[in-house]
């Protein structure tokens, strides 16, 4: 940081230069005029990378669904985030002109990314490793939430004009499906789900998310088998 180079004093004003009171070496930063061609090239590169990231996702889908390959789920994140990072670097370097700017501003920006990295990694370190000692500590007791004390307005009002509030029992997702099954029948939901997922059969019905709480004994044995697979991995 040439910018903040201190002037060492010697107990008197000998080191003091009235033309340069801070002993700063001014660099002409922050006033660089970008060439129009550079800006346009950067835009084109950004658009190309956007196309690339969408294309990569389509290729992945194709490989999984049509060719039946199994791609580890982190591959998707790695590819998408790598392309996004390249795009971000382009924006920061040229559009935001950090390349030509006071290096202090770059340091500020890197510091905040560093703080972000710490925040994310340590939080994940805890929440991703709950099952290290006792496996049953990791998954949720009831998938989709406990549903305790949940109410919501139905949007309708009673004769006094007060909003009608419904009580939600158990996980919200299960409640919503149960209500639909009550209203339109299980077959309707089954049919709609089959339309939505032509490839595989989904379990239908209220039992999937029945509240699993308040029962003494080995609670987790009652939890749907799929729940254990969702937690902590």
């Amino acid at each position, binding site marked *: 940081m040439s910018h903040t180079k201190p002037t060492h004093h010697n107990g008197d004003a000998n080191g003091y230069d009235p033309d340069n009171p801070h002993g700063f070496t001014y660099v002409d930063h922050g006033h660089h005029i970008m060439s129009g061609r550079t800006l346009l090239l950067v835009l084109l590169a950004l658009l190309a990378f956007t196309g690339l990231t969408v294309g990569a996702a389509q290729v992945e889908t194709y490989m999984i669904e049509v060719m039946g390959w199994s791609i580890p789920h982190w591959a*998707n994140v790695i590819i998408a985030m790598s392309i996004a990072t390249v795009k971000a670097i382009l924006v920061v370097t040229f559009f935001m002109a950090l390349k030509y700017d006071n290096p202090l501003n770059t340091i500020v920006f890197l510091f*905040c990314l560093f703080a972000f990295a710490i925040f994310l990694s340590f939080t994940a370190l805890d929440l991703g490793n709950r099952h290290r000692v006792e496996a049953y500590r990791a998954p949720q007791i009831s998938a989709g939430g406990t549903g305790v004390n949940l109410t919501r307005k139905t949007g309708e009002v009673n004769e006094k004009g007060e909003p009608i509030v419904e009580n939600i029992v158990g996980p919200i*997702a299960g409640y919503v499906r149960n209500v639909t099954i009550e209203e339109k029948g299980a077959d309707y939901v089954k049919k709609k789900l089959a339309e939505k997922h032509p490839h595989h059969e989904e379990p239908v019905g209220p039992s999937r998310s029945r509240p699993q709480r308040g029962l003494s004994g080995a609670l987790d044995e009652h939890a749907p088998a799929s729940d254990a697979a969702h937690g902590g991995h």
Partner: protein
Amino acid sequence: MTSIPTQHDHQPSPGDPSAPGWKRYVAASHFRSAADEFDACKLGFWLFLATEVLLFAGLFCAYAIFRMMYPEAFAAGSHSLDVKWGGLNTVVLLISSYTVASSIRCAMLDKRFWLHVNLIITLVCAAAFVVIKFTFEYGPKWAEGKRPGVLFDYPLWSHPQEPIWWSVYYCATGIHALHVIIGACLLAWCLYRSVRHKAYGPTHYTMLENSGLYWHLVDLIWIFLFPLLYLIH
């Protein structure tokens, strides 16, 4: 070095009513020069941008943790989003970022007409982004019952944790959309000041520069949000 003057060459002429706004500007007296003030304002604004990044860090962190815990729910939720609209919004924001960078370039070159043209294109892009977001993304999904948290009302979910996905989706994109609107307001204010007072020119364009930085940050956040939300498998 170009021969075009920069903020280091700022010679304020506050008493001359015929001079454009940027020439009449006088730096605050506790700074040693206009360039010093410009540098300070930019450092201050980069610090502010760091706080904005860390604000979104919370949302990215929540996203990462829940995706780690419920990958299927996130994949299922992501499939409900339309890559076309997300991709179009990405393109819109990238173009607007380019025009903002160009508008600052025009200010530095004292080309006021093109400065205004660029800013107007940016504002149109901002409006397009918000319209696409609300009309083609939020609207239909909300109507289907794909809503955050307790408002969730979509019986055809494929994973009981889908309400959490929708919460993260609405919070992240909603707060981002709010930033788009704030950024557009800042740029509109710049446009007004430039049209009315000729406020920005080669030796003074601090406000425009900082508003531009803010807009680029909004773009930067979206560069990461887009693949994370729309391109999951």
